[in-house]
């Protein structure tokens, strides 16, 4: 235990004494958030919605009004035929059909359950604004119609608040930071230790590789918490983002473990330090790209990339941004745990002191 604690503290000291290597990425990401706020005022691209209102009631007008108030949607009213045309032409990103029996009551005066029909162009901004749409409908349902849920839509059930740029950017930024500090830093540091002979000197003490790796993981995780805290404080100050800290801690811990194991596996598999760093970069950058643009990936690509560990980090962060807690990210955590187990075993098999 002394060996683990001492190595962890030694790693942390080295991180702190090398601030440029340790904190430049997080600082750049914080700067990105600030720039986004200054340049774009935090607004996301709007989703153009054509509403087909067959109900023409005060209730349907209230729903459309809520939609406009969300700030994410540019709403127009269309006939059913025109709506289909503008959607096909790409003049709008989404159509929302409100049925004629919207706000109808049964004999006892209770609202009759209705289903809104949503059609959207895959691969457009509409896809990523579906949670926000869902949030508007749920809000309408609770506030306007009372405690009995009666309106539903056939899209992914995510509780969402009004969507803004930060909802799309923050998960990718956090994933970027995890990949940068866990995968790329780990691969580079391990490869450097190997090529300079530091690992051989540690081997000469007879310590177990597990102690060495876990102490490094612990130090990197502590560093990651500090970095992510800085990012989230800025996100909170500029965008008012509140996240469930327990769920965030679990998501980050598993994220760091996964990408650290991946970095370790790469540096164990490729003995040459420079090559290991290059391979780590070529693995990291596509994943960073996927993380940052997860909301805009075409459905076909997303169906493949959704199984990558970065997708579980960004998906989990999106759910947390939408107000989710631990149960909401349970599946992401389970998948990350699975990835961590697989990659740690692989890293253990290819680990070499020299």
């Amino acid at each position, binding site marked *: 235990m002394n060996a683990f604690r001492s190595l962890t503290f*030694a790693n942390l*000291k080295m991180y702190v004494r090398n601030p440029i290597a340790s904190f430049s990425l997080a600082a750049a990401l914080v700067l990105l958030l600030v720039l986004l706020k200054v340049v774009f005022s935090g607004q996301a691209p709007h989703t153009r919605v054509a509403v087909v209102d067959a109900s023409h009631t005060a209730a349907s007008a209230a729903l459309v009004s809520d939609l406009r108030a969300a700030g994410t949607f540019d709403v127009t009213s269309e006939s059913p035929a025109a709506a289909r045309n503008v959607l096909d032409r790409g003049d709008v990103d989404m159509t929302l059909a409100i049925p004629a029996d919207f706000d109808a009551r049964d004999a006892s005066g209770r609202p009759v359950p209705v289903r809104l029909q949503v059609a959207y162009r895959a691969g457009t901004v509409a896809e990523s604004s579906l949670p926000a749409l869902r949030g508007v409908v749920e809000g309408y349902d609770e506030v306007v119609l009372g405690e009995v849920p009666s309106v539903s839509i056939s899209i992914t059930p995510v509780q969402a608040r009004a969507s803004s740029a930060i909802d799309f950017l923050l998960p990718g930024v956090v994933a970027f930071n995890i990949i940068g500090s866990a995968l790329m830093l780990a691969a580079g540091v391990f490869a450097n230790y190997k090529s*300079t*002979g530091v690992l*051989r*000197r540690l081997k*000469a*003490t*007879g310590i177990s590789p597990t102690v060495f790796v876990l102490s490094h993981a612990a130090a990197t995780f502590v560093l990651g918490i500090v970095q992510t805290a800085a990012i989230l404080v800025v996100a909170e100050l500029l965008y008012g983002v509140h996240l469930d800290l327990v769920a965030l801690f679990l998501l980050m811990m598993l994220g760091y473990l996964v990408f650290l194991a991946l970095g370790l596996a790469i540096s164990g598999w490729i003995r040459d330090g420079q090559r290991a760093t290059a391979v780590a970069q070529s693995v990291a950058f596509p994943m960073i790209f996927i993380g940052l643009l997860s909301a805009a990936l075409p459905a076909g690509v997303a169906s493949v990339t959704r199984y990558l560990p970065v997708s579980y980090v960004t998906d989990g962060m999106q759910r947390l941004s939408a107000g989710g807690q631990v149960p909401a990210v349970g599946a992401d955590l389970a998948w990350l745990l699975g990835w961590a187990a697989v990659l740690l075993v692989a890293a253990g098999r290819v680990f070499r002191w020299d």
Partner: protein
Amino acid sequence: MNVSPDAALVAVHDLHKSYGEVAAVRGVSFEVRHGEVFGLLGPNGAGKTTILETVEGMLPIDRGTVTVDGVDVSSHPERVRRRVGISLQRTAFFERLTLVELLGLFADLYGARHRAERLLERVGLSEQASRQVRTLSGGQQQRFAIAVALVNDPPLLFLDEPTTGLDPQARRSLWDLVEYLRLEGRSIVLTTHYMEEAQHLCDRVAILDHGRVLALDTPRNLVERLLATGFRKDVAVQRADLEDVFLDLTGRQLREG
């Protein structure tokens, strides 16, 4: 460890080690006794470092047996490494940690007592305690490597070419340190390709080439055996050499970087 003056602390029997098709060590046997300085001599590529690292448990053994204080190295390499002191030919340490911090870290890795100040004093680096390794001179780095090898207070030390690349003052200083460690009762196995160093420090030496032991005895016996064959040097015996001139002019005091 058991202390019996004539007992073998290290026993190597019929050691073989290859790197792919290249046989680096071919049937080497020798013993190291308690309290002696044992030298492995040979030209580059003779197999000195390979033998040393197999005995330390740093490299796996292909064939043969090696025991250190009765512990089989093949079966328990980690156990052996935890009980001996090792100074590698090319030693590197974590950057951005001071000498004191590194010694504390290594003490924890060995589960040993912290005594950084005492170790630094012993190797003459007390004034450099708060410096980082990369700021030390070559000789200071070698002495620090020996300080780290002493962290677990080992009765047996392995020093791989400890004076290679050092200036005469630094080399003499390291010789003094090795003699001091021997006086403390430690056994030392070192490799070198400097014959005057072996003659000065070693109680017994094994001369190696092409992975085999060519001769093994005390330096004096080896010289006498050669002279008994009728060997004579053509050159007149000098009572001083160029190194003596160098040291006379520049002084024997160690230059600190």
